């Protein structure tokens, strides 16, 4: 499995398969332009109240289809179609990636069932309903709830995360069996391709705001790169006395984009793989801690800075899966809090997009940064310029390919809406299943999978590295990220729904 040509990995890596799965479903949804809805079977949970369901159980009280043309379908039948389509596509990808397809399919089936159980239970009104008027009604008051956590749509996410973590830490035998299918990066990158369609729709609704978010996200990322890496590297070398290679790999892992940056940097400086592997284990566990703490922290302490919070999340939380998951949770928690306090409902997706866009910029630059690092190592550290050379193709090999799917979905949606504006409604309707329930389902799968693969006991024996990570995160990364995000995004709030 070596990378020889620019096409290497197109059929054998999760990164590319996120592009293929995301764009394939998007392409099918575009048939709606011809008046045919081919994705309306996608199922979504309803908001439900338990006494109502216990009093007279019907599946239609828990589940419904997305498309009007599929309303005659039994909800369980539509749910099975959802399982078959996604299970089939992802299993095909697993086969191409030379995974054990039988183990993958069995594991995915279990993850799918857990995901939907969490999604349905998390949609119970006592967990999510907010005491505020939405669309002319107040579900909390209408159902005469005596209590409620008022977590909005964040409730299923939190539940999925807790269930995944319980499996990963208290049922390790089962977690090992699920590991072949627990691919949070693949799931989240597919969701991010779907999010590209969302961004297209949001750009049409609020063009200036979207462009502002994109450009300031790039600028914030650039500033963060300039500060984070040198500071963490200096801390690792001077205070924690790490060797050059370990300090470089850890600095990238902590300050840039987590596991992928640690591996890319390890490769760039030709470190023994054990170094990025060790750092990766650390990053995965710390990313989970960040995911558990930061959305609630930002919502509690900075409720009036939604976009700042999202961008700070993008710069602070490592790994795409944890960052996007944290962004999604932050999005839901902040919308619910703002709605409860002011009666105003922000549009869903903007806070998440600010977290994801910032992360995407960070990911995009990792190839360039590690190429520079590789040159520095060859010419200045190892001092072997006459013998070893590094090709610019390394930038491409390390480029996150899912970004191509994200950009393709976003720009093609904009192009179609501009070229055939009279079909804009059909486009919006046809891709609605993709923009909401499919994207949410991939996020839910990510929450469960990321919990399953996180084993907190792996922190044992990593004393000095774990301490460095905690110190750098708390004293450097999180405060600087928030300051940079505040400089570029302060005062920005999402449009009202």
């Amino acid at each position: 499995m070596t990378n020889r040509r620019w096409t290497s990995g197109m059929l054998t890596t999760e990164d590319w398969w996120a592009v293929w799965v995301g764009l394939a479903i998007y392409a099918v949804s575009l048939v709606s332009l011809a008046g045919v809805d081919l994705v309306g079977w996608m199922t979504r949970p309803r908001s439900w109240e338990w006494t109502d369901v216990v009093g007279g159980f019907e599946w239609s009280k828990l589940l419904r289809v997305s498309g009007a043309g599929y309303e005659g379908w039994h909800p369980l039948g539509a749910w099975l179609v959802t399982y078959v389509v996604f299970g089939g596509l992802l299993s095909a990808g697993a086969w191409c990636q030379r995974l054990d397809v039988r183990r993958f399919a069995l594991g995915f089936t279990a993850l799918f069932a857990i995901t939907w159980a969490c999604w349905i239970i998390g949609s119970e009104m006592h967990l999510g309903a907010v005491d505020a008027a939405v669309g002319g009604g107040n579900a909390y008051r209408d159902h005469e709830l005596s209590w409620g956590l008022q977590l909005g749509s964040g409730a299923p996410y939190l539940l999925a995360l807790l269930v995944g973590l319980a499996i990963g830490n208290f049922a390790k035998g089962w977690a090992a069996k699920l590991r072949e299918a627990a691919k949070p990066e693949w799931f989240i990158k597919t969701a991010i391709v779907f999010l590209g369609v969302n961004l297209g729709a949001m750009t049409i609704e609020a063009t200036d705001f979207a462009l502002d978010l994109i450009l300031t996200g790039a600028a914030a990322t650039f500033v963060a790169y300039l500060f984070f890496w040198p500071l963490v590297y200096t801390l690792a070398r001077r205070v924690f006395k790490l060797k050059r290679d370990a300090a470089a790999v850890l600095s990238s892992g902590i300050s840039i984009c987590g596991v992928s940056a640690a591996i890319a940097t390890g490769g760039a400086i030709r470190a023994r793989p054990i170094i990025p592997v060790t750092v990766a284990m650390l990053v995965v566990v710390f990313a989970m801690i960040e995911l558990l703490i930061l959305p609630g922290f930002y919502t509690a302490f900075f409720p009036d800075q939604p976009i700042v919070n999202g961008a700070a999340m993008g710069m602070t939380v490592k790994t795409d899966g944890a960052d996007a998951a944290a962004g999604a949770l932050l999005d839901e928690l902040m919308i619910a809090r703002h709605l409860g306090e002011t009666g105003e409902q922000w549009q869903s997706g903007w806070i998440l997009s600010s977290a994801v866009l910032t992360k995407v910029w960070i990911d995009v630059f990792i190839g360039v940064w590690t190429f520079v690092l590789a040159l520095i190592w060859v010419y200045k550290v190892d001092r072997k310029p006459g013998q070893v050379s590094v090709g610019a193709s390394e930038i491409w090999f390390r480029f996150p390919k899912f970004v191509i799917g994200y950009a393709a979905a976003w720009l093609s949606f904009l192009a179609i809406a501009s070229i055939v504006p009279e079909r804009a409604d059909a486009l919006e309707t046809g891709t609605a299943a993709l923009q909401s329930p499919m994207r949410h389902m991939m996020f839910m799968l990510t929450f469960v999978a990321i919990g399953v693969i996180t084993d907190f006991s792996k922190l044992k024996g990593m004393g000095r590295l774990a301490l460095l990570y905690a110190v750098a995160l708390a004293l450097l990364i999180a405060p600087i990220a928030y300051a940079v995000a505040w400089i570029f995004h302060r005062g920005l709030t999402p449009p009202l729904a």
Partner: protein
Amino acid sequence: MSAPSDRAELTLRYESCAWRAFGNGVDISRCDLADLDAAIVRAFARHGGAKRVHVRFDASSLPPWLRQYQSHYFNYVLRIDEGPST
């Protein structure tokens, strides 16, 4: 070694605490990568032919769970005519 040509390719793996490069009739292991590079250069210089050796890391030697984050480790090129720098 295989028939000489200007360019050769080796696959690099990290196995049992050692770097191993193989292909083109070469199979060399060393604990240190710089030592491995020097050994490769010596092997190709001895037999003549290849001026550039493309060394490509085999990502399948990384733990499977890691590959979803980054599927590339590193490639590099060794120039044989300039000999090993020690």
